């Protein structure tokens, strides 16, 4: 079989060019049928809040804390009527909605304009096309196809997509590392005031200095972290060996306990099982016997498998005679295990491929509509009919 890097013949080029052109043509034709494809709609909601001052609860005559309530709530409206100069903040929130919600809104507004009446929107705000999310969808479709294009052969689109994935992943990990590790685990504990001022304004400060002092032992990980970074300085690289030794030692200790208890002892315990086991199905005498045979056979196979596989990995004795025969049984067990692993891996990969093709057909091309996000007219069934 040909490797993807090998040159292609003229006829092969022609066939693949036709395949690619047919796909492009289908996409263009699809985009011109119906109301289009690959669009994302959002619902705009005005999130305005008014700050209620303290002691506003007249009914219970209790002093309440200042709090924020929605301006469109009954409490908010009443308060704003009484205090027009109250502190109000607001922003717009956009929630993704199914395209059918947009079509319903369009149909309603068309009917309203025909009947020369005004109709209020059903949801909290108007539904509109979201250009950023639509572009994001098309970019996702492009990258999916760019990655798939490697199956044809290595090409600039694939290289571009691969580089973007690597770059974005590295950037994402760095940001996550800072905001989810360094800020909460180090800065917040070492200097809560600094963290509240610059990184996490919503955090609660320690009530007293006594609550804060124990956190000073976080200076140790800070120093170890700085020593690890010294690896970037050639002359001081040896500093990093200390934190590395600490990491390796800690992980070894942590894992040793976990593996001895969870894997070693528990699995030995799970392998010491009776060779005869009563079956769980007791509906008829025949089923009881059958179920018992299967349950016992399963246990016998487990015991034989464990012993035979262990013998295969026992290299101090030459694999001849009984030992050789048992080791051969062990090889069979290993091969069956590898086969099962291969089968599961294939199933997993096909599931991932199916998910990407579903994305292309459903979200991008609007050919199918399994989640009923659009009306039937917008799906391929409607187009065919």
């Amino acid at each position: 079989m040909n490797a993807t890097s090998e040159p292609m013949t003229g006829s092969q080029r022609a066939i693949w060019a036709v395949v690619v052109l047919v796909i492009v043509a289908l996409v263009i034709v699809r985009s011109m049928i119906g109301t289009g494809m690959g669009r994302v709609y959002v619902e705009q909601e005005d999130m305005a809040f008014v700050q209620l001052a303290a002691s506003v609860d007249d009914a219970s005559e209790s002093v309440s804390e200042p709090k924020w309530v929605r301006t469109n709530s009954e409490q908010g409206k009443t308060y704003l009527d009484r205090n027009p100069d109250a502190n109000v903040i607001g922003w717009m929130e956009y929630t993704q909605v199914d395209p059918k919600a947009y079509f319903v809104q369009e149909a309603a507004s068309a009917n309203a304009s025909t009947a020369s009446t005004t109709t209020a929107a059903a949801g909290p705000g108007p539904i509109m096309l979201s250009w950023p999310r639509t572009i994001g969808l098309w970019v996702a479709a492009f990258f999916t196809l760019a990655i798939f294009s490697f199956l044809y052969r290595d090409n600039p689109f694939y290289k571009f997509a691969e580089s973007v994935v690597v770059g974005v992943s590295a950037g994402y990990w760095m940001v996550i590392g800072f905001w989810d590790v360094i800020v909460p685990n180090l800065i917040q504990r070492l200097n809560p005031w600094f963290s509240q001022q610059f990184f996490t304004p919503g955090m609660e400060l320690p009530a007293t200095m006594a609550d804060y002092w124990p956190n000073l032992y976080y200076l140790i990980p800070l120093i170890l972290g700085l020593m690890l970074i010294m690896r970037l300085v050639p002359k001081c690289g040896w500093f990093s060996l200390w934190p590395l030794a600490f990491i390796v030692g800690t992980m070894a200790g942590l894992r040793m306990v976990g593996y001895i208890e969870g894997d070693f002892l528990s699995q030995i315990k799970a392998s010491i099982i009776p060779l005869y086991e009563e079956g769980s199905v007791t509906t008829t005498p025949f089923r009881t016997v059958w179920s018992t045979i299967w349950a016992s056979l399963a246990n016998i196979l487990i015991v034989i498998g464990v012993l035979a596989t262990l013998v295969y990995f026992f290299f101090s004795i030459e694999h001849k005679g009984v030992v050789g025969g048992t080791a051969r049984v062990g090889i069979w067990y290993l091969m069956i295990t590898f086969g099962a692993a291969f089968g599961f891996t294939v199933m997993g990969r096909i599931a991932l491929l199916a998910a990407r093709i579903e994305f292309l057909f459903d979200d991008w091309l609007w050919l199918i509509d399994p989640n009923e996000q659009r009306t039937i007219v917008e799906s391929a069934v409607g187009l065919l009919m």
Partner: protein
Amino acid sequence: MIKLLTNLDRRWIFLAMALCVAVPILVIGLTGKTIPETPTPLAEAFFNEIDTAGESKGRRGHVLLAFDYDPASAGELSPMAISLVHQCAQRGLRMYFMSLWPVGPQMIDESISKVIDRHYPELVYGEDYVNLGFKAGNEQVIKVMGIDLTTEFRTDTKGTPLQQIPMMKGMTSLEDFDLIAEISAGYPGTKEWVLYSATQYNIPMVSGMTGVQAPLMYPYYPGQLKGLLGAIKGAAEYESIVNVWVREQKFAEALVAGGMDEAKAQEVAAKLMDKPAQVSTWTESAEAADLDPKTKAELITIATAPIPGEFLEGQRRMGPQLFAHLLMVLLIILGNVVFFAQRRQGGRS
């Protein structure tokens, strides 16, 4: 023929595989038909463990849902995560979401949006479910959670301190959970949760995982893992169990609302579930004479209402699996035929 197969461009195989996956997706997407699933004991054990969570303590189950996966494996794991949340929400369990993967919170949000926001809007954040978000540190996080939960999690993803969240009251360590339900794509994942929580603290645990991991995790069942879902097949089986059970529950709820006592309602609901197509006929029988027309209409609606698409994701993906596997088997046979034919030719020469 042998020469043609020997020199076959591998891209034809890719194209054949793409068609084997794409055509069933189109057909299933257009017709809405899925391949029926027969649940295996592993999927049933997974379901039963969640169904009985909290019963031993005589309380509403407190389930820790650890979603340790990212978009790269969402195609395989998302269906089982959605069904898991579906079952927990329908069962009325308290759900504590968390992740050891940086992109896990987005996966959690997706499940909450698809299941809770759309189908169980009555559930209250902070009382019925809470999102504790991502925590860096791999197995060390699990280890620390076993000692003190608040050391690792001081706020939820929205920044609300845990002390202010009603359902976090009394939750101090892993041992306060009735069950750990893990969806895993690799490291850290099922293995780490088994080693550092299920084994060390004897907490019941179930796990759904990618196909790559499944064969390595089978030895933990039924000892350290009480239920196991392997790859999309496990997801589809579990999905079908949950869908049938949810419909049965809805039948029972409608019957109870119509005045039937709970035990009888459960019995009738199970009977209706056996033959949902005959619910309309049953409503006209003598057994349903005491029910008011509204309840009867609701029962017919429940029986005929299509299952929402998001709860069929796993079963939909079993169609492409079938044809792709058939192609694989065919290719393996062809490969062997070519191999033996070449060997025979080689022997003759």
